[in-house]
């Protein structure tokens, strides 16, 4: 059984590895946690929660960039593979799943990429379908992955109706209650989100993350 100081040292090691964007170091730090008999669920919750906040602050202040969020996400994945293998599957809360993309006929990717990375570093499992994604593709991937949220980006006034189309298709397929739908993008407003019956709207990536947490019950 690890002492308090050993536990703190091990958890700090994992946090540092993630914040250095170092997947190999994160894997090793996770193994130390397991070897010392520290509760892996506690490690997942504490280390990941704190590092996600630091990463989001860094991105917001321009101290780190999109690739760093990708690398931090990779480090978190590497560590969680070790930690999750050390505990009974049912004792680890399943990750919430988001299917995200830019709607049909729209090639804008930057905002969508940032939201995807924020969600990933915030602990979500993210399936990024890219740009110019047909409504039916969002739905089929959401079904395949058993997603909690479908996140739709649109940067053109003329493509935002595809956000509504996804919701309408979900309704016609009897799937509307199964998935939460959140929307965002340059021409998107809270009024538009309400008008089309979306469950959430994010003005920027940070707000998007908060909305996703709220929609999945991770925050109130």
């Amino acid at each position, binding site marked *: 059984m690890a002492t308090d100081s050993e536990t703190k040292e091990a958890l700090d090691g994992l946090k540092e590895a993630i914040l250095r964007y170092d997947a190999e170091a994160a894997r090793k730090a996770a193994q130390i946690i397991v070897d010392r008999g520290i509760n892996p669920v506690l490690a997942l919750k504490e280390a990941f929660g704190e590092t996600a906040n630091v990463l989001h602050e860094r*991105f*917001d202040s*321009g101290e780190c*960039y*999109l*690739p760093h969020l*990708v*690398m931090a996400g990779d480090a978190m994945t590497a560590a969680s593979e070790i930690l999750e293998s050390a505990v009974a599957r049912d004792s680890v809360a399943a990750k919430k799943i988001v299917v995200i993309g830019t709607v049909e*006929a*729209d*090639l804008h*990717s*930057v*905002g969508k*990429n*940032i939201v995807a990375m924020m969600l990933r570093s915030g602990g979500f499992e993210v399936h990024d379908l*890219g*740009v*110019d994604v047909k409504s039916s593709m969002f739905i089929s991937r959401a079904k395949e992955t058993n997603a909690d949220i479908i996140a739709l980006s649109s940067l*053109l*006034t*003329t*493509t935002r*109706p*595809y956000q509504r*189309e996804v919701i309408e298709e979900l309704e016609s397929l009897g799937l509307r209650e199964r998935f939460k739908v959140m929307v965002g993008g*340059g*021409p998107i*407003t809270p009024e538009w989100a309400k008008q089309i019956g979306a469950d959430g709207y994010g*003005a*920027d*990536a940070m707000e998007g993350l908060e909305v996703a947490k709220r929609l999945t019950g991770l925050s109130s």
Partner: protein
Amino acid sequence: MISLLDIAERTQKGRKVAEDTWNMSLFRKISELALRYEIPQYTDNTPFLNLDDTLPEKALQAGIDLLVEHGVYCITTGRVIEFTRQEVLTTIRESPPEIIIGNGKDARIMKQRRVEGTEPLNFCPGHHAPFTVDLAPLIVKNFARIPRTDFIEGFNFTEVDGHEILGAPLEAYAARRQLSWMREGVRNAGRPGLSIVFYPITTRAAVLMAAMDPVDGLRKGDGILTSVLPDEKIEHDLLATAIACEDYGLWRISGSFSMMGGFCGGVDGAIIEGIAKPLTAVLCYRAYVNYTGVENVRTVSALAIPLQPLNWARSVVNQALNRYTNVICMAWVIPTSGPGTETNLLEVSLRTIEATINGANLYAPRHSRAQMNAGQTPLEGELMVEVSDATLAAGIDRERGSEILTKLAEQLKARHPEPGFSIQECYDLVNHHPLPNYEKIYGEVKEKLSSLGLAFA
């Protein structure tokens, strides 16, 4: 110069790479190039406009190396388009530094300017913003009536002939209607041959090409927006359009600014991508006119007005392109505040002074989060022309320009973006005149700029 058909072939035969892999390898290559060419990081002492005459050439070499050593990615096929150094250098050498646009007495020459050049700037007043169709021809007429307008870009809308625009057939029809309203607007302004640039309703090839029509639509001398995508990516619909346009006689413009904080990384990487991207537009779409520079990935949703290091980075990019290539640079002025506000006009002024000194031309000032009928008025464009003329008349060089921009930035630093007003709330479209309150703000902004050293006529 490499042909567009060769580009098309390479998108089918190049190395296959997953997009995620491309993104991260781009970051690593750009980071390596920033070290190789010692592209400096921004410090608090860095001036608003680059004064280091060795830096633009180093940055250009880094941009060329990026194209030669990493290539361009086609998102349609997931393949890498590779270039030899000779192909890139030939493209830089052979692309034209000026093109003729428009027709008849309304034809204009779009040309590359020099850093600290004294020649008047080419100018596009708008749109690149959404408007309701009831305003369409009147809006176009107002923008076309600005005497210095060299070309005018289309706009977006949500309904056409009582139908919501949704799906390729309606998008294609809307494309044709956009052009017919544009044509009507420029005719009503007494400038029937003014070059019109099609603003894509959507980027499907069928929609982009539906606008071609020598009578009511796009004709020779007109243009089309075919932008290179972020992170050095292109795609097939835009490439198909570029090939068709080359044959038909339409010029292309590309939104070729880089996004600091994206996969290019920090400001050093954004400078390198900011140079490589317009060269990519010339190579892959034969787009000789580019709106160039560096933005922040968070500009669109900015909670604060983004200033440095973007201003400095933009100046490095534009100085490199104007000194060592033939790219015709335009500055996209995207204020984070809406029209009708002093903050908007100050942001527009800051970006215009910067563009004038760096050798860029002036492109479509538009609120970064433009909402329906609230993205812009003709007044911001008119201010751009006046400010650029006043900058030239005062003979402001980079050093003095940096001092002026520093003072101007001081006034903006503590402000937060304001939503602004709809065009009807601050501009009289019938009489082509700002409403009194906006006109008053306009006058006050010019007074502030005069006190900083600009020489208005």
